[in-house]
């Protein structure tokens, strides 16, 4: 009985927190997107002194980079150097 009640409370909690978790995830993703934009700021014409080093991240983030440029409304990769699609 107590176990069932605990399950019920856990279910209720999950229903309540679902949209909230989503919003927090969205905010975090926006921050990440912004960070990525800073890393590759040449795309919008801002010189980036660490470009050479950020290139080393390339193999680790190629998949995320692809999702990112799609989210930003760009069908194809905006950078000639990074060809994800």
């Amino acid at each position, binding site marked *: 009985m107590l176990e069932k009640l605990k399950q019920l409370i856990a*279910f209720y909690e999950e229903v309540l927190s679902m949209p909230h978790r989503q919003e927090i995830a969205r905010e975090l993703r926006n921050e990440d997107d912004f960070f990525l934009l800073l890393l590759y700021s040449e795309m919008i014409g801002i010189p980036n002194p660490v470009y050479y080093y950020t290139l080393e991240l390339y193999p680790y983030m190629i998949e995320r980079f692809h999702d990112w440029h799609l989210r930003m409304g760009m069908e194809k990769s905006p950078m000639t150097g990074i060809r994800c699609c």
Partner: protein
Amino acid sequence: MSGILVALVGMVVFALGYRYYSKFVAEKIYRLDPNYVTPAHRYNDGVDFVPTNKFVLWGHHFTSVAGAAPILGPAIAVYWGWLPAFLWVIIGTVFAAGVHDFGTLALSVRNKGQSVGTIADKLIGNRAKLLFLFIILILVLMVNAVFAWVIANLFINYPASVLPVFIQIPLAIWIGYAAYKRKMKMLIPSIIALAIMYLTAIFASRFEFLQINLVQYMGGADGAGLFGLGAVSTAFLIWIVILMVYVYIASTLPVWKLLQPRDFINSHQLVVGLAILYLGLIFLNPEMTAPLVNENPDRNWLPLLFITIACGAISGFHGLVSSGTTSKQLDKETDARFVGYFGAVGEGILALVSIIAVATFFANTDAFLATYTSFTQANAVGLGTFVEGAAKLAEGIAIPADIARTIVSIIVVSFAATTLDTSVRLMRYIIAELGVEYNVPVITKKHVATSIAVVSSSALVLIPEGPNGFGSGGYLIWPLFGTANQLLAGISLMLIAIWLKRLGRNYAVALIPMIFLMFMTMYAMFQQVFFEWSWFGSNSNTLLFVLGAIIFVFAIWIALTAFSTLTKKYDEPLDKDN
């Protein structure tokens, strides 16, 4: 007839509908496939696309669609007797709303989780998408006006509910802050918030100095108000201005700050409200005192009944939720039946209790007929009667009447306030989208779009011709709200029908409710626009005439498009995954 029996019959029909009809639709028409990779899995990004347990998803879907509308519509429609309202709610839920909510969900899942508007663009063309945006715009405009009026009305009639409702705002901000910044669990804080609200409600019901009664401050109903208006009209004006300033601020804040935490509290209120009403019904077992059928109504039930009850029987708004958020979180395609169809059933259950609360409230049939004297009067007294009737049911579980009235009105105001906030936000997005579409960059700005939304809604709710004086524009717009909502449902059903046809399936399940809805909508609008609101009509009103005429033209346009698209021959059937 006993109220319990009515509820029982309704529940049995809903259960049968879910058990058999939804099973038939799921297996034979939509042909749900447990192995289909849903958008939640295919595009899983941890934000919008997240596979979610079906019970959790149902809970979220239901709390998003349930609001004040399934309470208000049936409370008005009882005017024609409780039987017509009851029949439309149960038949509408089983054969129209279930198919619609479930269908938009299935359609969206098979279309990458896109919303109905985008799918309309794909299946019919860009014009369909724009039409869709315009209809949603009209719908949210109506929602703003109707709910602003509902809240102002309850604040004036139940002044004890003002303080608890306003206390909800800082409490919600606190919960949002605690959950977001401190990563606290939300269940305990939101229950504490609810307890504080209801304690305030108890005190405010008992101590008059805690009641914010604007009418009394101005010397009672006969007192003089501002600008030469009466006290009641001035109170309406003040509340509506306060509400509009509030929604302006609320709808421009990030959602986690106010809107979402208030939703947590409201979800508890929905559970509490449904539990109180159904428990009260069981303990009290009241008789249905409203007439079975009203013998001498001043307005015919055909077609008005079908637009008076929109939410609770079928509502296009649900399609927006189904295809907007729910479809992106569906774990297995077969879960769509439970989440979509049962979501519609949940709304039907809410509408059912609204009918029972109103129909059991009166001492006898004569008392009912003395209150519900005409359709216009029914529009005016429906909400108040629901609050009184619900309070009477609550007395069944030993809650004193005055406190029960305050709590019920708080619940309705909270639902209406969240809907108001969401719909002003939605209106802002649509205005911005239309700005992009027609290349008017200035209206894509947040504050410009919000100002347009708020000012146009205020203008609509403050139209001077309201039947009960200033500020009662909401009474007049209710039929328009129902019509716009049904029209939206009509388009969604049309999309489902087109989709099914192109897959080579039997599309009658969507086509029949669609034809029914479109016919009733056009019939009702034709009657009201030409015989009532036009310059030669009985109740001439330019604003309503224009709005009604636009809806009427849209309805014809949709009917023609549906006809041409459905009769068109396609060389090859739609690819299953497209």
